[in-house]
């Protein structure tokens, strides 16, 4: 039997997930709202002094982005497994890794990309020097896909579990620590006026590694979870 091509399948999955996401735009916006709220906590908890905030801004932006991605990972596959549509995906003639990659892409477009776009606003509120903003955006654009992909792997591993909540964070955090280190450092270096292309290429390398390995791991994990 002639099965539609990979590109077609990827696009179909992507479009379906985006359409579903936009029907519940409030839910999809949760990680973004969370990101902004966590960054507002720091001035409240420490002090509104511009010098202090500017000093901690790189760390705050990156820790908040990381936490927002944890929150986002929870919802990546849960619905599909609960209503049984994931079973049908696993039984389709298309590679499950491809379909899950498409789902993760849609998920990144709705939860990762908004963080990148929101970064200048948050950076400004934290008195991050203006010259650090473009680098921060570039670094976030390279880092958030990695966060989504790692989140996808771990979400696929834990999706069927009743006690999944805190576990997911415990699994994701150690693995994404390098992203935090390089990302925060990129912002930090840029605000000190240093050359950042080296750090950015490290982030890009991590993204490529995640992009090449995680779809297979996600599919394997999902098949285990559906078992």
């Amino acid at each position, binding site marked *: 039997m002639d099965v539609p091509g990979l590109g077609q399948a990827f696009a179909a999955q992507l479009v379906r997930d985006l359409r579903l996401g936009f029907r519940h735009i409030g839910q999809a916006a949760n990680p973004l709202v969370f990101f902004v709220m966590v960054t507002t906590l720091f001035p409240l908890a420490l002090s509104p002094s511009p010098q202090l905030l500017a000093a901690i801004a790189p760390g705050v932006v990156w820790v908040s982005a990381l936490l927002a991605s944890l929150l986002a990972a929870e919802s990546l596959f849960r619905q599909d497994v609960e209503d049984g549509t994931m079973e049908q995906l696993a039984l389709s003639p298309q590679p499950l890794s491809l379909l899950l990659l498409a789902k993760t892409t849609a998920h990144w477009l709705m939860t990762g990309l908004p963080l990148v776009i929101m970064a200048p606003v948050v950076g400004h509120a934290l008195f991050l020097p203006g010259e650090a903003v473009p680098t921060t955006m570039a670094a976030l654009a390279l880092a958030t896909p990695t966060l989504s992909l790692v989140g996808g*792997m771990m979400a696929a591993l834990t999706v069927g579990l009743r006690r999944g909540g805190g*576990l997911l964070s*415990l*699994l994701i955090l150690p*693995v994404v620590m*390098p992203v935090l280190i*390089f990302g925060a450092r990129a912002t930090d270096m840029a605000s000190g006026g240093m050359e950042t292309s080296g750090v950015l290429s490290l982030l890009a390398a991590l993204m490529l590694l995640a992009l090449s390995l995680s779809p297979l791991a996600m599919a394997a994990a999902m098949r285990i979870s559906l*078992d």
Partner: protein
Amino acid sequence: MSTTLAPWFGWLALLLIVAGTIGGLFLAPADYQQGDGFRIIYVHVPSAWLSMFAYVVMASSAAVGLIWRIKLCHSLAAAAAPVGASFTFLALATGSIWGKPMWGTWWVWDARLTAELVLLFLYFGYMALRAAIDDENRADRASALLAIIGVINIPIIKYSVEWWNTLHQPATISKIGKPSIDTEMLIPLLLMWLGFTCYFFFLLLVRGRAEILSRERNKQWLKDALGATS
């Protein structure tokens, strides 16, 4: 097999550790800078080595179990995790005890200590995932996948943490375990290292055996074996 090998590893470990301890505590000269405080490396260095080694053993045995569907390997991986986590904890504890007289504080964000800490989190994640899945078969395979993801990540984490550390810390803090070392100091260290490794395999075999027995408690061959002895 486990019953015959385990005592060998056990006695060998005991012998080596006793010899290493005597050598390390009494025969090796005190460090001219650190005095007797350095002697804690005889515990610290072997534990730090084993913390990594145990993870690799765990991940490779889990990978073999996942690919060729061998239950024995899954049992070994499950047995290795708590042992590895304990060695990681020991490495962290001895590192911070050593740090108190050296750096004047219990904890510094030294690259190696930080990497050990992240490793401990990886072990915790592995054990938590195992514990969260009721079905043994699924727990085996899911945690095996996690261990493989972790082992790919360890070099990246180590590299990034070291990179981070050189940027933030003045280079004057000497790293644990890499001093230029005297032969008299080195021999006990090697003995301890070998002894700890034997001890690890001893624990692995004993725990692995217990793990297999508890899994197979309903299988016929086990009932037969127990019936024959009692």
